[in-house]
């Protein structure tokens, strides 16, 4: 059982993401629900104004599990990085807000959707920020635990560790469900923390729905000398009772009845 500390930004983003998924008849509800607190913790930890100015020394956030688009756009809207009217167009004709994260949206650093791309790009960003001597600037990348089955991630992890990229923060949405079943049924990689520790990373293992705990881990990594991994233990579909831990909610979209049930459940939690 994961205990969740209430967070107004996360609650607002979760409600918005559900609205967007329902209005856009979109899928990937499960992953968006597991990502909300992770994204909230990141944007609460960084200087959002620098992103608005597109300052080259800004922190970068890459959502490698691009199917978490609704959560990404909802959190961007929550932090004033995407206007609300645009967010409401998610997954509809003519919008730039595709079902996978797109850099057509200004605050999005990198388009993703094919898994295993975000970590190499974030590694390159971290190298670039360090080479440009932007002390304190960081690259954040959010990956799914199922996504770790893509080999390209391990190429990047080896390099990041070798280069001691202390400005790289890797965050794993460890919701333990990939596409059609549980990740441990496909390729069991547990315990994840030990794998990353073996690669030379500073590893934190936290409740992925506890914004304060994730922020504390981000702050600790900033004070360290090695790249960091935060294994965020999450529930796929978190906050939507009928979708929690159900692989099918990678694919299904909400009908009106289920949408109302989801919203009622959120209201009860809050």
């Amino acid at each position, binding site marked *: 059982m994961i205990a969740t500390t209430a967070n107004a930004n996360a609650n607002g983003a979760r409600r918005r993401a559900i609205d967007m998924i329902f209005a856009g008849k979109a899928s990937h509800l499960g992953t968006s629900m597991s990502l909300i607190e992770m994204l909230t913790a990141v944007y609460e930890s960084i200087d959002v104004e620098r992103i608005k100015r597109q300052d*080259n020394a800004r922190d*970068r956030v890459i959502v490698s599990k691009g199917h978490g688009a609704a959560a990404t756009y909802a959190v961007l809207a929550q932090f004033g990085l995407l206007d609300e009217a645009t967010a409401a167009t998610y997954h509809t004709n003519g919008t730039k807000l595709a079902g996978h994260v797109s850099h057509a949206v200004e605050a999005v650093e990198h388009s993703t959707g094919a898994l295993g791309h975000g970590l*190499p*790009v974030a590694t*390159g*960003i*971290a*190298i670039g920020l360090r080479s440009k001597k932007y002390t304190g600037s960081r690259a954040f990348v959010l990956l799914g635990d199922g996504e770790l089955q893509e080999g390209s991630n391990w*190429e990047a992890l080896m*390099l990041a560790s070798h280069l001691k990229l202390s400005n790289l923060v890797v965050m794993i949405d460890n919701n333990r469900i990939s596409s059609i079943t549980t990740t441990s049924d496909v390729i069991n990689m547990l315990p994840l923390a030990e794998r990353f520790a073996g690669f030379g990373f500073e590893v934190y293992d936290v409740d992925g729905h506890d914004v304060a705990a994730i922020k504390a881990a981000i702050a600790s990594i900033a004070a360290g000398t090695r790249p960091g991994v935060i294994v965020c233990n999450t529930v796929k579909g978190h906050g939507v009772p009928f979708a929690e831990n159900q692989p099918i909610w990678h694919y299904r979209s909400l009908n009106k009845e289920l949408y109302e049930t989801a919203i009622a459940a959120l209201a009860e939690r809050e």
Partner: protein
Amino acid sequence: MRGNIINAVFDRMARDERVFFLTADMGINLVERIAQAYPDRFLNVGIAEQNLIGVSAGLCNAGYKPVAYTISNFLTHRCFEQIRNDIALHEYPIVLLGTSAGFDNAPLGPTHHIVDDWGAIAGIPGIDIYCPSSVPFAEPLIDRLLNAGRPAYVRIPKGEPAEPASTADIVYLPGARAHTLIATYGSPAQNALAVAAARDDVSVLVFNRLRPIEWEQIAQPLRDHETVIVVEDHFPEHGLYGALCRLCMEAGVYPRIRSLAPQGYNLTVGTSAAYYEAIYGIDVAGIEEGLRALEAAQLVRS
């Protein structure tokens, strides 16, 4: 020509702090001086081509102009999706430098034969494609590409040919009597030039740039010749042969177009490119034979 090109990168890095050089553990006795002179803008990512491209994209995001270097076959095929999503989709001005072309790595076997690289890259929109056929074109190319600010793939053949002595993207060398045009690029261009030197009815069109090809650049030579032979060390369907057939069809210009090119992968060992060039008729003797065959066919038809 890789030495000429890497030297040009080195010179540019002295003048341009935005240029960042990456290698996937290739370039012995060549790239070391970049590492020594510019350690903050040099990176060996190891034997990890997917990471080579992803890291390059990240460097672009941070404001650099990356130049990514390794053997052409690994550079294009292993990381095709990274090139599509992380470079082309983002229009990142990354220069991909691929060493070796065609059968440059002859005895190393078909995994190292580079006969399907640029055609694959040409399937992705927005990436300019070059195959320098001579040193005079290759040497200033890096500056051009880094100034252009567009994604580019450069397929670098072995050798340092001095001809054609031109910096033009497409070089037209007309014969005295216009009859047959040889369209070619890279290493086989030297064979085509040798054939043309011995005849007065053969013209040569050397392509240093393979994409984009503008019709206006080639319209006159293609209109002026009854027959075109496309000589290349790459599969023809998605190579220059395919490109010229499409352009001619669109323009309503209908020369006879024939292809001399590799057909499929070859498991037989040859100790040099010449071995394979002979098999596929893209060496001097093969091109001459191709010309004779065309002439005979035309006599029959007429």
